C-alpha cells in the first residue's frame, strides 16, 4: 500500500531538537556537519522574506482590484471565479511550471507565490466590501463624501474581518508553498525536508517541526493584527 520507502534510520523528536540547535553529523550525512541554529535561522529568514515579498506583491495587485470591484459592485464573476480557480492550482505543479517555463531563482519564485496569493485576497476583498451594510454607505454618500473616501473610511474598516481572512489565507498558502522553493533553487526550511539525503532523518523531522511552527506563528501574528485593526464597534457587535 505504501509507496517506495526510503530506508531511514527512525527519526526521533529528541534528535530533531538537537538538530535545530547544534550542527550534527551522522552516517547518513556522510560525516558532514549539517543543521544547527545558524543554518536554521538563515533558512527561516529566507522563507519569511520570500513569503512577505510574495504577499506584498499579491496584496498590491489584488487588494486595490478587489476593493474597487466590490465598491462598484461589478466583476463578481472575475473576483469569485478567480478565487475558486485559485484553489485548484496544484502547488507543486506551479513551482515546477515556473521553473521550467521561466527559470529558477528568487524573482521567479516570488512571481509564482504571488500568483498563488492573489485569488484569496481578491475574492475576500470583493466579498468583504459587498457585504458591508448599505445604510452607513448611503449615509456617507448623502453627506457628500467622495467615492474614494467612502471606500477607505467607511467600507474598508467595516470589511476588515473578511479582508484580513483573505490575507491570512493567502499567507498560509504562500508559506506552505515557499517550503518547496528549494526545488527551484531558493533555499528555505523546506530544504531539510526535500534534501533529506543531506540532512538525515533528524533534519527531516526538524524541518517539518520548524515549518509548522513558522506557519503557526505567522497565523497567530496576523490574527493579532486583525484584532488590532478591527474597530471596537465591530468587535462589540460581534461579541
Amino acid at each position, binding site marked *: 500500500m505504501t509507496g517506495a520507502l526510503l530506508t531511514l534510520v527512525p527519526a526521533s523528536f529528541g534528535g530533531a531538537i538537537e538538530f535545530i540547535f547544534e550542527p550534527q553529523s551522522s552516517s547518513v550525512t556522510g560525516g558532514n556537519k549539517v543543521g544547527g541554529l545558524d543554518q536554521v535561522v538563515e533558512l527561516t529568514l529566507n522563507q519569511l522574506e520570500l513569503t512577505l515579498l510574495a504577499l506584498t506583491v499579491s496584496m498590491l495587485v489584488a487588494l486595490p482590484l478587489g476593493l474597487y470591484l466590490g465598491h462598484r459592485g461589478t466583476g463578481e464573476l472575475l473576483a469569485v471565479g478567480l478565487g475558486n480557480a485559485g484553489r485548484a492550482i496544484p502547488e507543486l505543479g506551479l513551482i515546477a511550471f515556473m521553473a*521550467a517555463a521561466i527559470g529558477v531563482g528568487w524573482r521567479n519564485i516570488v512571481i509564482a507565490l504571488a500568483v498563488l496569493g492573489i485569488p484569496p485576497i481578491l475574492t475576500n476583498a470583493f466579498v468583504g466590501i459587498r457585504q458591508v451594510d448599505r445604510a452607513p454607505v448611503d449615509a456617507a454618500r448623502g453627506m457628500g463624501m467622495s467615492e474614494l473616501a467612502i471606500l477607505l473610511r467607511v467600507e474598508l474598516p467595516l470589511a476588515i474581518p473578511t479582508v484580513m481572512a483573505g490575507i491570512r489565507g493567502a499567507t498560509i498558502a504562500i508559506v506552505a508553498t515557499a517550503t518547496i522553493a528549494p526545488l527551484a533553487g531558493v533555499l528555505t526550511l523546506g530544504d531539510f525536508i526535500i534534501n533529506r539525503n543531506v540532512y538525515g532523518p533528524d533534519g527531516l523531522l526538524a524541518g517539518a517541526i520548524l515549518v509548522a511552527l513558522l506557519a503557526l506563528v505567522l497565523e497567530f501574528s496576523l490574527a493579532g493584527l486583525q484584532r488590532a485593526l478591527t474597530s471596537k464597534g465591530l468587535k462589540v457587535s460581534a461579541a
Partner: protein
Amino acid sequence: MNAFAAALAPPLAAVGEVGEGFFKERSSDTLPCQAREGHLFCFDWAKENIGSFGTPTLQHLEIVAISVAAGFATAFALALFAHRRHWLQPPLLAATGVLYTVPSIAFFFLLLPITGLGRDSVIIALSAYTLQIIYRNTLAGLANVPDSVRDAARGMGLTERQILWRVELPLATPEIVAGLRIATVSTVAIATLAVLASGGGLGVKFYTGGNLTFLTSIVIAGAIAILMALAFDVVLLGIQRLLTPWRRAAAG
C-alpha cells in the same frame, strides 16, 4: 491506462499537427524534445507517453477521495456534536484551525514517527487539512436555519433529534456542500505534494528522481489536476442541487 491513451491520443494528434509546424522551426537538432532545455511543449512525447499518466491519476483520485471522505465524516460528526454545546465550539474551531494552518507538507513528516512514510501519512494529513472548512461550514449552515422555522418545528411537537435530521440538516445542505467543495478542490491541489512523502499521485509527474520534470509533463499533469478539481466541484454542486429541489423552485 490504455483506455486513457486511446482517449487522449486523437485530440493531441490533431493539436500536434498544428503545433508541430510552429515548433519545428525552433528546433534544429535531433535531440529528443524534452532534452532541449525542456521549455517547449512536445506533442510527440505527449502522444507516446500519455498512458503513463493513468496510474498517477488514479492514485491521485484515490488519495483525494479517501482523504475528503474521512475528513468529512470526522468534521461532520464533530459539528453535530458541538451544535448544541456552544462551549465546545471555540476550542474545536481552534484545534481544526491549527490543523489547517500547518502546511500539509510539514504535516506529512510530523507524522513520520507515527505512521512512517507513504500514503497513510498523506491521507491523514490531507484529512486533517479539510477538517476546519467542513466543520465551520456545517456549524454555520445549522446556525443559519431561521429561528421561526425552529420555533414552529418545536412547537408542533418534533423532538430535538427530529428537528436536527428532518429540518436543520436539510436546510443546511447548501452550506455544508459548499464547504465540501472547497475542501475537495483544495485537496486535489495539495495532493500533488504527496510525491515528496512517497505517496504517489500526480505529483510524480512534476518531480521525480530528485528533480523537477520538464514542461510537457508538468503541463499535462497540471491540466489533469485542474480538470479533476473542476470535475469534483461540478459533481458536488450537482449533488447539492439534487438534494435541494426547493431552492430551484424558489428561483424559478
